[in-house]
């Protein structure tokens, strides 16, 4: 089936899923899970062709005038992601059904709707070949993530975490968008595959540095890299099924996906890889450190996820084809074991109501299958043979040793992986097997829905380790080839012989075992420290956030202080400054057209009348007199329009003047007839100065503009075409309703929305208040 059709099926399917989950009762989640399962097998059907190196392209025009289309591409790398997204999506749907079993059907349906919608967004992002399309789906994942983190909307910390993740990831998305636009400006295309072909042109562009920084901004925020590493642990406020899906297995890997896509494009820029290695290593270290300090079960897992993302970013930064294999292998491995561990954590937390890791113990008695799945998954995470985690860790070290980087990344990787081994022990052995005295009973046991996900994932992690040929040629090799840019041979196998990598693995396991034995002591010692909270938390985010709010409050208090005169003054000064600046920038020419003809009596008389009206309006203390005087100025302009052959303008001006008087009268009825002058002498002087400056500017502008020879091209064009093409004699009207109809539509839409605002703002106060006001 067409790939674009699959995306649309998924999008529409989210709505269907909502209805099904709402009305199908207990069977609902199982029926909903058919959709991701169907998509999984549809994509799996392409695996054979993709395995031979084929790439599938499809394209439908979307905005042809801007060169934007729904362009999709399926190669080995996107196939890996689509399979992870739909496969884990199926399991998450089943798990969520069981997890929310006691919730009202309405809430459960809502959750499944967001999960399927999120899945569609993910599919769109990883399949997109058109960068604009990718950006749209990219931001859609941020928005659905916001909805899912804040799903328990009654909890303040969930709302806060949701907002934080949205501001960070959607803000990063805007940075990505700017980068995409710069690429489009440079190359004139938004197609990722064409950009890859013309990489040398992009690298030669003067915008290269800006493009790289902007794209890194998008990727680092999404994948929680330092200094944006803080949002992911906070996002654990989401329900666990969402955490397993979005914040470990799929969405947070989008940043990695993006970097991987651009890695071959920027291959010739050494700084690109170096930056990735530096930021990846920093993230790994910080997250590993924070994992030891984390209190919550999910918090520990979240920090280890951040560390894993750091490993992936670092791997992409490394050169050599082994790095590509290692990246692909680790993406697959991490998705399998981390989602399984999140499922197990969710079941444990759900069954006990305890979220602290150190409050849990001996759960294997009550949740035997969950404990088994957690054990298998954590062995894979620890990188022990014969699990797939072992293979991918061997590749990680091999990639580092093979690359041209020095020994620092190796050291970082050894330390971080040792912590990963310790985390693996801490999140499976301790809560499930040790400390039996901590938990006496659980609220409920395991159900089928809670078990399917973790058991399948943990089994696959073991199976792929024992029988790596199952995925080596069909999945890892095509993905790594797509990533590397040319076909590579992958010997994805368990035993590599006695290599330096094996020695490093042994060192990691030894260190990790030591850490897990002293976990509690280490944890307590690290909790006593205060500086990590200050330096590594989200203090920076809060400073920026509060700063923006503070600046907004301050400027609102200054500009919107409630005094109409201040508003008018600010608008007038701003207008004068802007026009004056433009006038002097363009040379500051002044010209006046001396016609030398006789003075025309009628216009002169009218103008004198207008001046008299203006002077009267400025001098009078009576508001009614002021309205009438301003009206005189308006009518005079209308008469001048009429005399100079613009009857349409004149007619409109007359009507507007009349209506303005009618409307202002309604306001005036409620005001005192005479307004005592509250302006001080100083304020009046400022008023006079601003008015004079404004008048001078308008005079200079009008005189200079009319001194220029009039460009008649537009006038001629419209006069010639208005009857032949638009069948109208009245050129003004034809321009409004036909030639520039879109402008007019925009304008009347503005009028419409302004009307709605006025209707709401001027709502009559409540009767109670009104009586109070009258009495007062």
């Amino acid at each position: 089936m067409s790939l674009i059709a699959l995306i649309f099926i998924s999008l529409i399917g989210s709505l269907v899923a909502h209805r099904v989950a709402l009305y199908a009762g207990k069977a609902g989640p199982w029926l909903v899970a058919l959709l991701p399962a169907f998509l999984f097998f549809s994509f799996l059907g392409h695996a054979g062709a993709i395995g031979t190196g084929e790439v599938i392209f499809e394209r439908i025009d979307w905005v042809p005038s801007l060169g934007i289309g729904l362009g999709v591409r399926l190669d080995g790398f996107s196939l890996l992601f689509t399979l992870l997204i739909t496969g884990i999506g199926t399991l998450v749907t089943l798990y969520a059904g069981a997890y929310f079993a006691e919730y009202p059907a309405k809430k459960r349906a809502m959750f499944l709707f967001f999960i399927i919608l999120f899945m569609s967004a993910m599919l769109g992002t990883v399949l997109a070949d058109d960068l604009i399309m990718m950006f749209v789906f990219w931001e859609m994942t941020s928005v659905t993530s916001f909805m899912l983190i804040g799903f328990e909307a009654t909890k303040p910390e969930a709302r806060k975490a949701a907002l934080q993740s949205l501001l960070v990831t959607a803000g990063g998305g805007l940075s990505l968008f700017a980068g995409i636009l710069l690429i489009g400006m440079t190359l004139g295309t938004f197609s990722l595959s064409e950009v890859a072909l013309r990489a040398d042109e992009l690298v030669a562009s003067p915008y290269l540095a800006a493009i790289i920084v902007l794209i890194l901004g998008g990727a680092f925020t999404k994948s929680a890299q330092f200094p944006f590493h803080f949002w992911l642990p906070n996002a654990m406020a989401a329900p666990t099924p969402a955490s397993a899906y979005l914040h470990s297995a799929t969405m947070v890997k989008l940043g990695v996906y993006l970097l991987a896509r651009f890695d071959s494009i920027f291959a010739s820029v050494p700084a690109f890889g170096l930056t990735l290695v530096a930021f990846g290593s920093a993230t790994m270290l910080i997250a590993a450190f924070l994992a030891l300090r984390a209190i919550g079960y999910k918090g520990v897992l979240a920090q280890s996820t951040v560390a894993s993302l750091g490993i992936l970013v670092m791997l992409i930064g490394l050169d050599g084809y082994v790095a590509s294999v290692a990246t692909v292998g680790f993406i697959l491995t991490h998705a399998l074991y981390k989602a399984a561990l999140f499922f197990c954590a969710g079941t444990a937390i759900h069954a006990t109501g305890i979220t602290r890791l150190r409050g849990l113990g001996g759960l294997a008695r009550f949740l035997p299958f969950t404990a088994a799945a957690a054990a298998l998954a954590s062995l894979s995470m620890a990188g022990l043979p014969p699990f797939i985690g072992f293979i991918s860790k061997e590749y990680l070290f091999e990639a580092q040793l093979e690359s041209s980087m020095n020994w620092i990344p190796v050291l970082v990787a050894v330390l971080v992986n040792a912590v990963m081994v310790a985390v693996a022990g801490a999140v499976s052995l301790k809560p499930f097997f040790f400390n039996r005295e901590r938990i006496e009973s659980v609220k409920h046991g395991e159900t089928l829905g809670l078990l399917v996900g973790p058991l399948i994932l943990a089994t696959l992690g073991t199976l792929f380790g024992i029988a790596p040929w199952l995925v080596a040629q069909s999945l890892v090799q095509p993905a790594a080839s797509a990533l590397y840019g040319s076909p590579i041979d992958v010997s994805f196998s368990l035993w590599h012989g006695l290599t330096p990598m094996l020695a490093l693995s042994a060192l990691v396991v030894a260190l990790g075992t030591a850490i897990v034995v002293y976990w509690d002591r280490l944890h307590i010692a690290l909790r006593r420290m205060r500086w990590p909270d200050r330096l590594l938390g989200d203090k920076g985010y809060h400073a920026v956030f509060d700063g923006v709010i503070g600046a907004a409050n301050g400027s609102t208090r200054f500009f919107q202080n409630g005094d109409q005169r201040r508003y008018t003054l600010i608008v007038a000064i701003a207008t004068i400054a802007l026009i004056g600046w433009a006038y002097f920038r363009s040379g500051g020419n002044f010209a006046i057209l001396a016609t030398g003809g006789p003075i025309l009596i009628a216009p002169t008389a009218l103008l004198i009348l207008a001046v008299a009206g203006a002077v009267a309006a400025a001098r009078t203390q009576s508001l009614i007199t002021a309205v009438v005087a301003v009206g005189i100025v308006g009518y005079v302009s209308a008469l001048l329009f009429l005399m100079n052959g613009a009857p349409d303008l004149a007619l409109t001006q007359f009507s507007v003047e009349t209506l303005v008087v009618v409307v202002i009268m309604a306001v005036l009825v409620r005001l005192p007839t005479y307004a005592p002058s509250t302006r001080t002498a100083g304020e009046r002087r400022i008023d006079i100065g601003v008015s004079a400056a404004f008048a001078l500017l308008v005079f200079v502008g009008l005189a200079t503009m009319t001194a220029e020879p009039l460009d008649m091209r537009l006038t001629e064009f419209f006069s010639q075409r208005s009857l032949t093409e638009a069948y109208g004699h009245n050129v003004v009207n034809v321009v409004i309703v036909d030639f520039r109809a879109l402008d007019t539509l925009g304008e009347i839409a503005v009028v419409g929305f302004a009307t709605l605002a006025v209707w709401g703002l001027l709502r009559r106060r409540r009767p109670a208040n009104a009586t109070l006001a009258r009495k007062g």
Partner: protein
Amino acid sequence: MSSIIFSAMARLFFWAMLAVSIFILYRGHDEPGGGFVGGLVAACSVAILALADGVPSARGMIRVHPVILVGIGLVLAIVSGLPGLVLDASFLTHQWLEFPNGFKLGTTMIFDLGVYLVVFGGFLSLVFRLYEEVS
């Protein structure tokens, strides 16, 4: 402001101005006029009524909520662009029907009617709200 003379004259003016506003709207394509001016005149006609008899009686006279008028106007303007989208693949490219006797009917008329209703409803909401506060 209850004055029998004003009230009686306002009724007359209301109908006269409403008729004139529709005439202005209709002739707009070939002579000075159009939806914007037409809408302004129509708003004036109801404003006079509201001034003379109060907002409730003016509301009763036009029956439709002014905000709804705005909505209908916007929808008409958008709808008038759809035939162009279908026939010419270009939104708001107006289409014309020509009759053998030279009479022409175009989607511009629908668009201009939309402008008329938006301006009419928009000013009317302003007038109603402000006069309601007074009475």
